């Protein structure tokens, strides 16, 4: 199984962002890295200068680079950016139909925020040129297994690590939490490297806000499931970047997949990092995503 590093979903400073990728390039046992902004176009101008260096460094480190696209483009500027990326030579990850329309007929990657729930959608997308399809986080393994039978030449990818992306909106909840609006947001999302904690009135951790995006409060960290996924025909696991040591995270997944460590050791390693929140795994088991079912101890 191959490991994919998803795009950094959070608003990290340009220096933190560049340093992160420099380390990934040199040290992480990762096959493919998705680079670019998928959540909010207000963040991208700060990284434009650093992007070329990051991409070059990752390529030198033997990583295949794929360019991310925005999950919810609405502005002319955002649509133009997607079109620019789509006409380049680098493989593009599609996060909505705007990007799909721009790359249709050429090889591309479908990201986890694109709705692919069944074999009919999968076949339609592979006919349009999808070579990898990362499935929506809420999909149960029974559905993944069906899709595995219809995957053809395409790689299936499953969200394996990090706070799963649950929703995208026009409204910026980070700004709202600070009494601001999206247009005058003061970039307050940069304050939370792993998202802003949303707890219930009982103080239970529940969700995390990341600008216009809402993430799971719990951290997905697959363990024994990766072998079931491999048997179901899944070729890639997606690790979503967090502020914890992602070289260690990817190393642990590599060791687990290659049989060098057991699931319990893998989870123990991850929990020692520490993770930004507790582990959840309900979705693949057709339960509430916030549940934790598999006990690896």
């Amino acid at each position, binding site marked *: 199984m191959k490991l994919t590093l998803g795009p950094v979903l959070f608003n990290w400073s340009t220096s933190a962002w560049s340093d992160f990728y420099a380390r990934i390039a040199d040290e992480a046992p990762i096959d493919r890295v998705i680079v670019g902004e998928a959540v909010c176009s207000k963040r991208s101008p700060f990284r434009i200068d650093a992007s070329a260096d990051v991409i070059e460094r990752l390529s030198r480190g033997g990583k295949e680079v794929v360019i991310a696209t925005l999950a919810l483009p609405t502005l002319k500027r955002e649509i133009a950016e997607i079109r620019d990326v789509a006409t380049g030579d680098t493989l593009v990850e599609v996060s909505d139909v705007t990007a799909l329309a721009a790359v249709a007929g050429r090889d591309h990657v479908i990201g986890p925020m694109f709705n692919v*729930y069944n074999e*009919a959608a999968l076949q339609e997308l592979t006919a349009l040129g999808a070579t990898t399809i990362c499935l929506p986080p809420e999909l149960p393994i029974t559905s993944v297994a069906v899709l595995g039978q219809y995957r053809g030449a395409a790689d299936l990818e499953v969200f394996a690590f990090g706070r799963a992306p*649950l929703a995208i909106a*026009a409204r910026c909840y980070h700004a709202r939490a600070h009494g601001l*609006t999206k247009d005058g947001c003061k970039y307050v999302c940069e304050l939370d490297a792993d998202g*802003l904690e*949303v707890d219930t009135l009982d103080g239970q951790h529940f969700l995390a806000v990341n600008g216009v995006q809402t993430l799971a409060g719990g951290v997905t960290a697959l363990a024994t499931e990766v072998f079931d996924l491999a048997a179901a025909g899944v070729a890639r696991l997606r690790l979503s970047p967090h502020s914890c040591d992602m070289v260690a995270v990817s190393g642990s997944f590599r060791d687990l997949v290659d049989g060098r460590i057991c699931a319990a050791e893998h989870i123990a390693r991850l929990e020692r990092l520490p993770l930004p929140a507790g582990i959840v795994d309900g979705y693949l088991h057709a339960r*509430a*995503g916030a549940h934790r079912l598999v006990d690896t101890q």
Partner: protein
Amino acid sequence: MELVCPAGTPSALRTAVEAGADAVYCGFQDETNARNFPGLNFTAVELQEGIAYAHRRGVKVLVAINTFARAGGIELWQRAVETSVRARADALILADIGILAWARRNFPEQRLHLSVQAAATTPSAIRFYVERYGVKRIVLPRVLTVDEIAMLIAAIPCEAEVFAFGGLCVMTEGRCQLSSYATGESPNMNGVCSPAAHVEYRQEGSELAARLGGFTIDRYPEGQPAAYPTLCKGRFKVHGKVQHIFEEPTSLDTLPLLPALKKAGVTALKIEGRQRGKAYLAATVRAFRNALDALEAGAAPAASRLDAFTEGGRGTTGAYRKTWR
């Protein structure tokens, strides 16, 4: 502008038609539509009778088959398409590209609308659906301002329908998995959001806690009416402060915006609420019928009297105004 009204049941269909709907939309009694609630929706026979009734009165019937088909179970969605075509539905409202492709291939003559659940927000995305699947109308996601809608409509080769009244998704429709995170069931997979089977009201001291999937969504002091715990309308703690982090309990009400929506080139207005009762349906349909008739006659729009039918007793124009963001 055409007035498109919800029909949760055959009797609601007749209520909407009598109250002045130009078109009604409905779905089957299963997870093929986004209002898969107990006691709601149509059998194949009821759909056939409903369509015959509506057609006799010059009213169109649109069938919503707007969830994402289950892997290994797509026949249910295909059968819903086939049954609707046979019943002579005026249009099918679809969201899943797999089902769109199948419907286009098998029933090329059938009029297709793109559901709000497909969340197409740009001219290029919409053109893709028009060119590849022959979509004739798009239902716009509730993420655009009126100005953006006007620009979008000028740039697309199909009709545009917008939400005019009712429950307001805060997240982009079809792109929200909050419900399944708490309950295991979602709009995309099951046609439900924050489903009643996972709701629990619990007395805790002097407060009533409204819970969804075991998570407290809000608390109410004694004597205060408790709202339904729709996840995105709940109160949560952020930085130790209690707030409606996503949205207050409120409903969309565009009566004040009708002239602007007409000027933007909107073809159809949709009233949400297939799960709502007869009183809601009759009042909202009649209010919008009167407002649209007044607008066509050049009269000034009347103030909205629909607050009684909104969540939390108040309306919002939502994303249609930029400051909402």
